[in-house]
């Protein structure tokens, strides 16, 4: 694909922005002609990543969240969600299903869901500096498309 398309967003870590963020990425992804199932997976993963910034990265303050999406060759949606919050001490532990530092209100399934709903998932974090989630989702080309 020539003239690759992208979008960058920046917004404060207010929980009302969770719905905004996943809707924005879903609209951007529409050009790849995803199915409802594919769109559902993407929205879920974005919701998880942005919620983690809001709940865990900036637990007592409002901080900045950066959300980037790009279209890559091969009908791939590339998403980056970045915060400059508290970071994760033990990434291995954080990735374990059901592990949460969030108590009763969280399930500890966010990272597991991002890993399994997306084609690629990477998490990097520096304690005290912030966390970046980088994920990709290939959208299946279906008949009738150029």
């Amino acid at each position, binding site marked *: 694909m020539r003239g690759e398309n992208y979008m960058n967003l920046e917004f404060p870590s207010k*929980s009302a922005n969770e719905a905004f963020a*996943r809707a924005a990425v879903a609209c951007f992804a529409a050009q790849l002609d995803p199915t409802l199932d594919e769109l559902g997976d993407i929205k*879920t993963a974005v*919701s998880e990543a942005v*919620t983690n910034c809001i709940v865990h990265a900036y637990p007592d303050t409002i901080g900045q969240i950066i959300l980037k999406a790009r279209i890559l060759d091969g009908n791939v949606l590339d998403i980056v969600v970045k915060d400059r919050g508290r970071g994760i001490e033990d990434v291995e532990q954080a990735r374990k*299903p059901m592990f949460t530092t969030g108590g*009763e209100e969280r399930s500890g399934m*966010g990272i597991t*869901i991002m890993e399994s*709903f997306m084609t690629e998932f990477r998490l990097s974090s520096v304690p005290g500096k912030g966390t970046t989630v980088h994920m990709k989702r290939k959208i299946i080309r279906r008949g009738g498309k150029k």
Partner: protein
Amino acid sequence: MKLTSYVQDRQLTIALTGEIDHHSAREIMQTVSEKIDLYMPLRCILDFRDVRFMDSSGIAVVLHTLRRMNTLQGKLFLQNIPAQPYKVLRAAGIEKVTEIREECTK
């Protein structure tokens, strides 16, 4: 959040609606708890028919409701779960700890 519910023979049915995420989950949990405390049901049914989106915050809502029903020695059922929330619930193995009735896939 207003949640529609009805009670019959100590069976409490609660219809969840809209988008369940961290932003809405706390209020949903609170409302569900209040209804359970009020009616002390033997069976609680969460109906997902009108849930348009759900992320892992919804898993916490279900587990919270399950714990509540367990302390009453009652049972929890989930019904009419659309495809997107169903996939999220399955990722957490929810079908192993509650009974799911007539899932509908859209």
